[in-house]
């Protein structure tokens, strides 16, 4: 019997090839889109899945209160980890990490690898798999180093050959390879190429021993069965007992939340990428639904054609249930064909999608999870698309259809219209969202940074750069290709180093204000285009500025009325005199307003070098010069650089991704909706053939017929616009609220989206309308 159903279904599909193609094509788009989104969601949800005992592992951030507001920071004091492990019985392991770049001696160029100084407990917390050596012994030797499999292979050809070898770091220090661990997968929050004992980092650094400085990442592992809330409460108590500072406490951030729930507000998790994951999952479902709607609409629109068959079958003894199965079989067959074609299409477009979202997703249709998901989607589509037509068609009474009396189109017509409206609501909402997301991203990108990010090259400071800075700088500027060279301790766009507890006259609660510190050279402002509002810059002779500072405008305002020049700031006992005020500039969160900044003339602490290039020279030429110069003044270190405007653009990855994807979804939603509309208009034209013939015989013009046929559809699109506008407004308004720096929504966006939908619908419908209108009426009347 089932074979019979499918045989019938196949013949029906084959007989109406155009109609079947519309249906299958719509579903292929739907299933392919949904699969791509689900692959992405799977990757997001599986972040950090390689951590053994993931449920027990937690990161420890600190909440700090400034100006009455709790802010969350990813750094902790050095002794915290040991205190947590010692004083809270539910914490079985605790490790500190300090992440940094090491230059490994390897060939002429050297190899820069990011890694961390860590406590040995990290091996157990992360469940790192040792390929060579063991977790127990790796850090017994204070000069030991554990390499990732890839780095070991890079340095020694094969990772098996690394154990027991000496590696030279930054041309000055030596480490003994005591272990090689398996690489962590791409989708791990925590990435490292090497690990070295934490003590080696803290040795001789007095400032790492107390609770005053936050600099380390702290990870802990709980004992099995420990209650999160109880332990979290205990963790919160620790810091105040050590420092008597009740405005700072540590909290637990579960490994399960690292990737998807990492936005904190007022000290609590408020969301994160999970919002995008949920949003895109919803979009996958919506796209599938509108693809299924096509099937329902075309199937019920065709009911006139199928009614006779239903009548005959019922007369011959078929029950309603058998007919429902028959029509469901058609929906399933369509859905199965669509799924098969989707797999082929996915293979083709997955690399493009990976490129777009910057991931390495694989289709892996042989993986049970993927195969079953696709099967699930196929079955759900089949049921969802087929159920309504099946019930509708199987309910025809044989006596009515065989008598040839018209069935009442009332209910099915209404539902069909409702479904078309639904499709267009979705399409219009997507169009509106696409425009607004694009506007918002552009808005922030065009925001006045307070810096000139163009023609600015950024390099890490390492090796002998500081020592050779003067001749290096002179060589570069003398070439004419470089205008100036600046040094700073933090990345120009990053949050960097900050603190509080400052005192000055004329302000209130000055100790609670969070201020960022930048240790720069005298050319930093000129290089980055930060301009002076008052006063002057630093002296080239550092020692003349040892107690001078330059502050930003917002800081100057906090210091009260009048010029800030000459005012004094007490920073933990050292009194600094303000010699210059510069404009505020943007760093950290690109959507918010940045904290005040205090600059110190201290180039020796620089981590980054910024080079303002002369745009009259070609970039390649400048880079060649830079490389050649650095080979002389910083030999043995790899030449690594980036452009600040690229770094800037990279900060909008999430928004850019959302923008790109919503563009694609908008296009697909419209495409699928139009496929449905195209099919529907074809059937309407066919159904009304006789009417059109009679009208033409009676003298109706071709445009008259076209407008007659198009009018009904356009009315549906108009209803869709009315429904879509408030929906899209509400949704986008909500989204924009999460940005401090945002656009206001313009009315023309809605007008544009509406007109675009009408235009596209008109284009789709008019094709069939024109075809019907120019047909010879004699033909249509004769066949009746």
């Amino acid at each position, binding site marked *: 019997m089932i074979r019979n159903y499918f045989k019938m279904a196949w013949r029906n599909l084959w007989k109406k090839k155009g109609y079947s193609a519309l249906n299958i094509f719509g579903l292929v788009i739907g299933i392919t889109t949904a699969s791509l989104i689900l692959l992405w969601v799977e990757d997001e949800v599986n972040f950090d899945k390689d951590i053994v005992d993931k449920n027990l592992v937690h990161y420890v951030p600190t909440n700090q209160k400034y100006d009455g507001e709790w802010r969350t920071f990813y750094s902790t004091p050095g002794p915290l980890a040991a205190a947590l492990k010692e004083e809270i019985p539910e914490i079985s392991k605790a490790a500190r990490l300090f992440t940094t770049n090491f230059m490994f001696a390897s060939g002429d160029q050297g190899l820069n690898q990011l890694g961390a100084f860590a406590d040995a407990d990290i091996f157990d917390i992360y469940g790192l798999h040792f390929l060579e050596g063991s977790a127990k012994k790796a850090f017994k030797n204070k000069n030991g180093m554990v390499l990732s499999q890839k780095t070991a292979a890079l340095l020694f050809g094969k990772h098996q050959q690394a154990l027991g070898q000496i590696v030279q770091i930054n041309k000055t220090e030596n480490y003994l390879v005591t272990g090689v661990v398996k690489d962590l997968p791409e989708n791990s929050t925590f990435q490292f190429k090497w690990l070295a004992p934490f003590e080696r980092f803290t040795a001789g650094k007095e400032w790492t021993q107390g609770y005053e400085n936050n600099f380390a990442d702290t990870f802990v592992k709980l004992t099995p069965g420990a209650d999160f809330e109880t332990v979290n409460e205990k963790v919160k108590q620790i810091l105040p007992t050590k420092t008597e500072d009740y405005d700072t406490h540590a909290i637990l951030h579960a490994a399960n939340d690292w990737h998807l729930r990492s936005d904190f507000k007022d000290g609590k998790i408020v969301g994160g990428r999970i919002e995008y994951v949920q949003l895109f999952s919803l979009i996958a479902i919506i796209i599938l639904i509108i693809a299924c709607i096509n099937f329902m609409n075309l199937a019920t629109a065709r009911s006139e054609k199928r009614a*006779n*068959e239903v009548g*005959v079958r019922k007369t011959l*003894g078929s*029950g309603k249930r058998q007919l429902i199965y028959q029509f469901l079989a058609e929906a399933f067959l369509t859905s199965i064909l669509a799924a098969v074609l989707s797999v082929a299409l996915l293979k083709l477009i997955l690399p493009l999608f990976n490129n777009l979202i910057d991931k390495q997703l694989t289709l892996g249709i042989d993986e049970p999870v993927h195969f079953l998901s696709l099967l699930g989607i196929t079955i759900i589509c089949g049921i969802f698309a087929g159920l309504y037509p099946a019930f509708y068609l199987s309910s025809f009474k044989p*006596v009515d259809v065989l008598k040839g009396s018209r069935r009442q189109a009332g209910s099915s017509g209404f539902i069909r219209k409702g479904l078309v409206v639904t499709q267009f609501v979705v399409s219009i909402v997507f169009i509106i969202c696409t425009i607004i997301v694009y506007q918002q991203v552009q808005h922030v990108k065009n925001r006045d940074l307070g810096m000139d990010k163009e023609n600015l090259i950024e390099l890490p400071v390492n090796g002998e750069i500081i020592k050779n800075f003067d001749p290096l700088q002179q060589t570069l500027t003398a070439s004419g290709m470089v205008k100036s060279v600046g040094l700073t301790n933090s990345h120009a766009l990053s949050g960097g180093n900050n603190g509080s507890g400052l005192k000055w006259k004329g302000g209130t609660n000055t100790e609670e204000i969070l201020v960022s510190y930048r240790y720069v050279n005298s050319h930093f402002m000129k290089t980055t285009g930060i301009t002076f509002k008052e006063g002057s810059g630093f002296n080239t002779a550092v020692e003349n500025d040892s107690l001078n500072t330059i502050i930003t405008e917002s800081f100057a305002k906090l210091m009260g009325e009048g010029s800030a020049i000459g005012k004094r700031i007490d920073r933990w006992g050292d009194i600094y005199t303000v010699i210059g005020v510069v404009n505020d500039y943007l760093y950290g969160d690109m959507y918010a307003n940045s904290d005040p900044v205090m600059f110190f003339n201290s180039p020796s602490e620089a981590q980054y070098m910024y080079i303002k290039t002369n745009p009259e020279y070609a970039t390649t030429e400048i880079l060649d010069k830079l490389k050649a110069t650095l080979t002389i003044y910083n030999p043995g270190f790899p030449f690594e650089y980036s452009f600040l405007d690229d770094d800037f653009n990279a900060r909008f990855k999430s928004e850019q991704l959302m923008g790109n994807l919503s563009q694609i979804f908008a296009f697909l939603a419209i495409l699928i909706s139009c496929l449905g509309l195209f099919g529907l208009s074809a059937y309407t034209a066919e159904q009304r053939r006789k009417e059109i013939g009679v009208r033409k015989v009676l003298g109706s013009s071709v445009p008259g017929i076209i407008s007659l046929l198009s009018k009904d559809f356009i009315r549906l699109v108009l209803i869709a616009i009315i429904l879509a506008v408030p929906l899209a407004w509400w949704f986008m308004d909500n989204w924009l609220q999460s940005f401090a720096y945002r656009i206001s929504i313009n009315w023309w966006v809605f007008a544009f989206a509406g007109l675009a939908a009408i235009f596209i619908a008109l284009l789709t419908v008019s094709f069939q309308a024109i075809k019907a209108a120019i047909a010879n009426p004699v033909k249509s009347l004769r066949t009746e």
Partner: protein
Amino acid sequence: MIKITELEKYYRTEEVQTIALNKLSFEVKQGEFVAVMGPSGCGKSTLLNILGLLDDPDGGSFIFNGIEVAGFNERKRANLRKHNIGFVFQSFNLIDELTVFENVELPLIYTGVRPADRKARVHEVLEKMQIMHRRKHFPQQLSGGQQQRVAVARAVVNNPKLILADEPTGNLDSSNGNEVMDLLTELNEAGTTIIMVTHSEHDAKFSHRIIRMLDGEKVTENILVNA
């Protein structure tokens, strides 16, 4: 076999009520061949639909094989129908997507006959109707006469006690029409009861008895001796 008494059927629109059958009574015995005649709109097709258990009467009694079926619901009617009644339509009503074989097989599927038995039974009937060689063709590939023979084959494949034929020659030329009438006569001679609605006096002469209707009522009843 069939006994209807004061059978009534109305059609209602919002404003008008039309009487399709007005207290119609007659009886058909097992093995009879009855023709129903009358002008368009006299209620012939309505009568055939009720006799075929496709429609429900609004009043009166309908006894089929000794059982009162007037009040039966859709499911009960369908069940009785598929085991007892075969239909032949003016427009053949074959399913375009099915082959000749599959069209004829359909009633057997719905009555739950096993595949092997189905095949034998369908072949037997197709042989009898002389369209065995066409069994793999689709309806559109056949002539009108051949299509109607397939329809007759489908009507008889289940060995129904009653065949209802609605203008079976209406869409056929005279030679094809005669072939179909000969087939029906053969079936009747083999014991199947036939009730046929027709406009054709020529076709009616094949029957034993002609019931003439007008405005939902029986006007005359002629018994033909030399059918």
